[in-house]
C-alpha cells in the first residue's frame, strides 16, 4: 500500500518523541548554562603552565627551552628567556621565561606543546568558557594568567597528574641521591 512505510516511519518518530519523556537514551541533551555535563578526563582545551608550591613565579616548571614555541604548528606561543637563573624543583639553577604568551585565538588545541615538553611544564586545561568582547588583548594569555598550580592539574587530569608527579618525584630523589653521593665522595676525598 502506498504510504505504508511512511506510517511505519512515523511510528518510529512517535516512539522517539514519547520515549524522550521517559528514557535517558532518547533524550540526550542537557539545558546547557544551568545543567552541565562533567567533562571527560582527557578533555583538552587550551594550554596552561604548571607551577609547584605556592609561588607562581618561583615554582614555575618552565625553563624557557622554547621547544614548544618551535614545535607549535600555528606558532601561537611567544617566549622570552630570562637573563638570570632560578633553582628548579631539583635545586639546579635554570632559566625561566621572562615572557610567556599564548594567543588562544590562534591556538588550535592540538596538544603538541604538551607532548614535546620535556619538563612537564605545560599541560592542557579544561576551561572552555573564555569568550570575551575584547578583540585584541583578551585572548592573549600572558604568563600570570597561564600559570596554574599543580593542585589544579591534579584535579582536572587526576590519572595523568599522578603519573607526572611520580616521575618527577623519582627524578628528584635520584638527583638528591646523586648530590648526596657526590657530597660524600667529596668529604671522603678530603
Amino acid at each position, binding site marked *: 500500500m502506498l504510504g505504508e512505510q*511512511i506510517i*511505519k516511519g512515523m511510528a518510529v518518530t512517535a516512539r*522517539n518523541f514519547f520515549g524522550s519523556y521517559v528514557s535517558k537514551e532518547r533524550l540526550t541533551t542537557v539545558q546547557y548554562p544551568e545543567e552541565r555535563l562533567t567533562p*571527560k578526563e*582527557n*578533555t583538552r582545551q587550551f594550554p596552561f603552565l604548571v607551577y609547584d608550591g605556592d609561588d607562581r613565579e618561583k615554582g614555575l616548571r618552565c625553563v624557557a627551552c622554547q621547544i614548544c614555541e618551535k614545535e607549535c*604548528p600555528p606558532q601561537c606561543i611567544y617566549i622570552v628567556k630570562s637573563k638570570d637563573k632560578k633553582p628548579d624543583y631539583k635545586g639546579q639553577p635554570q632559566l625561566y621565561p621572562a615572557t610567556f604568551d599564548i594567543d588562544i585565538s590562534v591556538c588550535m588545541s592540538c596538544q*603538541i606543546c604538551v*607532548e614535546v615538553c620535556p619538563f612537564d611544564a605545560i599541560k592542557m586545561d579544561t576551561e572552555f568558557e573564555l569568550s570575551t568582547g575584547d578583540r585584541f588583548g583578551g585572548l592573549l594569555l600572558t604568563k600570570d594568567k597561564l600559570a596554574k598550580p599543580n593542585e589544579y592539574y591534579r584535579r582536572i587530569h587526576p590519572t595523568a597528574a599522578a603519573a607526572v608527579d611520580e616521575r618527577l618525584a623519582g627524578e628528584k630523589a635520584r638527583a638528591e641521591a646523586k648530590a648526596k653521593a657526590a657530597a660524600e665522595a667529596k668529604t671522603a676525598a678530603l
Partner: protein
Amino acid sequence: MNAVGERTSQNYEILPKTGETGEPIGEFLEVSMGPQHPSTHGVFRMDVVLDGEKVVKLKPVFGYLHRNHEKIAENISYLGSMPYTDRLDYFCSMTNNWAYALAVEKLAGLAVPERAEYIRVIMAELTRLQNHTCLIGFFVQDMGALGTPLMYAFREREKILDLFESVSGARMMCNYMRFGGVRCDVTPDWLVQAKQLVNDYGKFLDEYETLLTENEILLARSQGVGVLSRELAVNASITGPMLRASGVNYDLRKVDRYGIYNRFDFKVPLGEHGDTYDRYMVRILEMRESLKILQQALRDIPSGPVMDPKAKLRGLRPKAGEAYGRIEAPKGELGFYLISDGMANPYRYRVRPPSFINLTILEDMCLGHRIADTVVILGSVDIVLGEVDR
C-alpha cells in the same frame, strides 16, 4: 549615490535559448546556487543553467575554504602537520591521521605495534560509522526530511564522539595517531564502552532503516536520480562508496590490505544501478560490515605497547625518498604523497582528497534532472568542503 532599491543585486542571468535553426524559442536561466546555500554543506557554489526546471549545464565552483594546507605542511615539521590533517575532512579526523601516519611510516620505515594496529582499525571503523550515519542524515535533509533523521543521526554520532573524546581529548580534532603507533593507549574501561556501543548500534541502524529505507518519498526522490555509470565512475577515478554503488568492486581495505585488514572477515557491499538510492544503500550496508569488523577487532585486541620504540616524536628526518600512503577513508581513497629530501619538513606534501575527486563529475550526474535533484545528488556524493578546498 545609490538609493536603496535603485539597483537590486541579482544572482541569476537570463540567457537566450534558440532552436536548431537558430530561431528564439525561449530563455535559459543561469542561477548561481551558493556559496551560502544550505544544501551545499559548506561554502560551495554551483553555476546552474536551467531550462525551466531542468539542468542543462552545471559548473561547480569551489575554493572558498582554501587555506594552503599543502604549503603549510611543507614548511613545518612532520609532526606539526598531524593536527592540520584533522581539519581536512573534519568529520573523519581519525582516518585522516591514519593516512598521513601511514605515508610517514612508509617514508621513515617505522613499524606499528600490534595493539596500535587494532586501535587504528577500531578508530577508523568508528569514524566510518559516524560519517555514514551523519551523511545519510544530511542526505535525507536535502530531500526535505528537515531535521528528524539528522537529529537521530547526531544523537548516535555523539556517542561515538564521546568515545573519541575520552581517549584522545577532543571530539572532532582528535590528533590521535602518531608515526609508529598511537598517542596513548585505550583503557579496558573504554573497550567495554566501545563494545557496548557496537552491540547497540545494530539496533539503531534497524530503527533508522525502518524510518528511511523503504520510505516512499525517499524512493521517489532517489531511485533513478543521478545515475553514474560504471565506465564513467572508473574513468573519473571515483572512489569509495560512490564507486561501489556503481558496481565496481574496489575497496582499499580488500585491495591494499593496509594495516591488518587481511585478518578481518567482512564483505564489500556493491550497488547495481549507480543511482543515489544505491549510494544510500551501500552506505547502510557498509555500516553493518563496519560493525562486524569492530566486533572482531574488539574481541581480538591484544595487549602490548602502542608505540614503535624506534619512533621519536620530535626532529623526525626521514631519508630522502618518496612515499604514498593511502587508506579507505569513509569518503573514498584518501592518499598522502610525500617527498623527503632529508630535512625536518617534507619537500613535497600532496593530499589526494576523495571528496574533491568525487565532486568532479557532478555535472554528468545532474544533467537532465530537476534543480531540486541536484541538491539530492550533491548530498549523495558526500563532500566535506574542508577537504575539497584544502
